[in-house]
């Protein structure tokens, strides 16, 4: 049920987990299929490939997996689907899948096509020029803000920040646009907004200076700057580099809505390299999000970073995922601070990095929550009261492994591993209030 794209789908899937709704169902070792009577005249053909949790349904829903697929999976897990022979339409689909997989494999084995480096370079250079113009105006905007004073920022509303953010989108610098919007949110966040606001504005300003002098920067740092601004290298180019091989743990996954785009951040951690990585994927509207990395699993494979100092990465190759039994994380909060500090030195624009912490205990004073490690050192948590109580319920006062997002001041708990079981901590609000 964790595959459900939203609660409504989960509920609808539950409604379809009755054999009554199905014209026919069947399964074998590799797949489950069924025909579900929907509102149309013809039943929808629903099929699930078990090995890779791939879904296909002939319904027009743009949710993925759709409620029919979820209902079918529930039926199957309840052992209500009898083993039978595959109908032709299932065979066709599986064959086409195998075909595609083979092609992909072949393509992967083929030597990469010589990129038209020159044309690509030109295109990118053109884009960088346009970004530079936009960024220059951002610099003026930031300095104006400081000259007249930031005291009035909260009273000016989101609109005040939307306008420059839109200009950054037009200038093809979505990364900068996002940072401006965050600045707006900070201004509206209530008491204590001033210091974080100045920090964020300073970081933005630093970015504009870096863009301004991008030719004078070492090439690698220049690339980092462009990635932060939202002009990353092409995925293919990144994947063409040497990857970092490790046993990678998928610590957590977060989905954020930016305009009509859903942005999925998957946080990885290398168990020997102790390096955090973040894989970004996007989906428009209600389209499917990439489901190849499931939190609470691990894989052996290579991950390519967008830059030596970057945490943004892409997965080059991976073994079959295995369920994690623990998060072999950093042994102390101090070690976590050191890891984060090192990352920040290389990339001052870094907002957050996710690291696993071993054996920490949640505590609270009023509604302020803390994590304490085995060395009796503590750090403040950035979580709702309900999030704190959830940690408390899971821990029962005993040390647990927790994956946290660090931002240089507080820790945001994302997931916990208790008794060999993975639990996500991003809860609905309003609990324990």
């Amino acid at each position, binding site marked *: 049920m964790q595959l459900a794209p939203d609660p409504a789908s989960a509920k609808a899937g539950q409604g379809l987990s009755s054999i009554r709704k199905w014209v026919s169902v069947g399964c074998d070792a590799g797949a489950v299929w069924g025909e579900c009577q929907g509102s149309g005249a013809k039943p929808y053909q629903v099929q699930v490939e078990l090995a890779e949790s791939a879904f296909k349904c002939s319904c027009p829903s743009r949710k993925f997996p759709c409620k029919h697929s979820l209902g079918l999976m529930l039926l199957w897990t309840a052992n209500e689907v009898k083993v039978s022979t595959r109908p032709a339409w299932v065979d066709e689909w599986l064959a086409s899948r195998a075909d595609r997989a083979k092609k992909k494999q072949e393509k992967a084995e083929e030597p990469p096509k010589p990129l038209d480096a020159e044309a690509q370079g030109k295109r990118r250079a053109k884009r960088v020029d346009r970004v530079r113009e936009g960024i220059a105006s951002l610099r003026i905007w930031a300095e104006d803000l400081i000259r007249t004073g930031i005291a009035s920022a909260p009273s000016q509303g989101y609109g005040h920040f939307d306008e420059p953010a839109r200009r950054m989108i037009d200038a093809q610098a979505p990364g900068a646009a996002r940072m401006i919007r965050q600045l707006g949110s900070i201004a509206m966040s209530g008491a204590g907004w001033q210091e974080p606001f100045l920090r964020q504005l300073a970081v933005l300003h630093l970015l504009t200076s870096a863009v301004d002098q991008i030719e004078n920067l070492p090439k690698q740092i220049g690339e980092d700057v462009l990635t932060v601004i939202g002009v990353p290298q092409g995925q293919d180019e990144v994947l063409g580099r040497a990857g970092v091989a490790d046993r990678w743990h998928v610590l957590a996954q977060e989905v954020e809505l930016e305009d009509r785009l859903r942005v999925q951040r998957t946080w990885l951690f290398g168990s020997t390299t102790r390096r955090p990585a973040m894989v970004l994927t996007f989906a428009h509207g209600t389209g499917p999000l990439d489901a190849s990395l499931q939190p609470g699993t691990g894989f052996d494979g290579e991950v390519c970073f967008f830059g030596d100092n970057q945490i943004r990465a892409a997965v080059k190759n991976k073994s079959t995922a295995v369920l994690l039994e623990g998060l072999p994380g950093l042994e102390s909060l101090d070690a976590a601070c050191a890891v984060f500090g090192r990352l920040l030195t290389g990339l001052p624009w870094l907002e957050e990095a996710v690291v696993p912490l071993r054996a920490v205990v949640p505590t609270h004073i009023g509604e302020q929550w803390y994590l304490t*490690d085995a060395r009796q050192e503590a750090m403040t948590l950035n979580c709702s009261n309900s999030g704190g109580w959830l940690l408390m319920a899971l821990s029962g006062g005993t040390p647990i492994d927790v994956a946290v997002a660090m931002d240089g001041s507080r820790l945001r708990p994302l997931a916990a591993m208790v008794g060999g079981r993975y639990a996500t901590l991003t809860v609905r609000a309003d609990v324990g209030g």
Partner: protein
Amino acid sequence: MLEELVKQALVGTGRAPEKVTFTGQLGQAIGSLPAGSPETMLLQTAALCSAYQRCGQKPTTAALEANLASADHLAESSPRAGQIVDQLLAAPDSQISQHLIVEWFQHASASNQRVPHWLLPRVLDYAAGHKRWRSVIIPTIDVRGEWLMKLNSRWQFAMTADADVDQIWQTGNQDQRRTAIRQLRETDSTRARSLIESTWDQDAAEERVDFIESLAIGLGPTDEPILEKVLDDKSKRVRLAAAELLTALPQSAFVRRMTERAIPLLNFVPPVAGQILKLKRAKPATIDVTLPPEQFDKALVKDGIVEKPTENMGIRQWWLLQIISFVPPLTWTMRWNLTPEQCIEALGEFGDVVFRGWQLAAKRCSDQAWLRTLTLAAVKENIEKLDLSVLNILHRTDQLEVLTLIAESPRTELDALVRILDASKCELDRRATLAVIDKIEYQLSLKAAAYQYHLAQLLQNLALRVPPQMHDELTTRWADQKWEANRKALDQFFELLVLRRDMKREFSTHER
């Protein structure tokens, strides 16, 4: 260290172009920044400070007092069971969601399983907001849940049991006192009674009614003095509440007085056999009714009897009804040496009034034999005579028999069935379910093309009450019924039923 910079930024460098100085390593780094406008300098300095702080963040030392929860006693419910209740708890609060949630916890208790830890905060929140379901929920939260409750003041609702009842009694609000006295009645009925007496003169009539009603818990002969005393209360409602409880104490002086008044009013005349020569025709047994004297006896007021009828009936019949209703029905079966059936059969003139009196009396004494017979008789004769509030006092088997009988009767209209099923609260068994199902199918065969409001209501009620394992059977049975206009109601019915089936299955297949 950013504070000074923030101050400057707030007013703007245009107005306060002061320079902030830093010392140490940070000061050196700032000193090496290329010169620029005051704005640039401020922002650059802030960026450096911020990075300096963020890079150098360190945890603080904290002495942690260990507070460990011990191991749970129960087995954890299955992951799927957890998902189900998670979804239910997140759904908008409604009677249906409450019913399903309670059912989940009942399954969990019955199969000795506990709430998964990750769900505890949600479950405790739910218990905090739904007082009436706490007793069902608390047994499933196990050690970890109790441990959490102690830590969060919002969840400390269960602690009242341990708190000082005397204190609550003196300072608590009506609700707290009400709960406290009922809890105390379960464990120490004498002490509860003396608490009620201790503040009797100060309590409002509404509270007094409430406290008298609480005496029904563990009612015994020792409660007679206070009840007898309360018969003199100023409030009519308090007097009635006391009289009702006294009726359930067969040895009480109150019952003796009422019986003395009632005996002359009802006279059993045995049957007369017909004689062979047919000089006399056979006469069945009858109960002759003598109405109470026309002059109202003022002593009756003291015993909870109301002089003026509150409904449309003769004044002396009204008194008769009330007197009978305060006499334990066992009196009649003993006195005439008859079964309740025989008594009812012998009713003649004013039979309806006596019947109602008996119904009330049987209810007050929880006399199951009488209740059962009266209810069945009412159903057979005329459903309108049935006192719906009696249904839930009946034992489940009797209740089911009554419901089956009602559903099977061709005279029962759908709307009456809806009303009766709504009033009764017990889970249906297979037989009662099938009887209701037959009724539904008959109704469908009459007019399948029309949307039927009562049918939708009935299905919704049924979805929460039929044995969930009947899901598959009903699916097959209703596969080719003519539902047409009522398709939506049917879909909702199965949606609920399938959830209940899954829930039950989750607990029974994972039984440990």
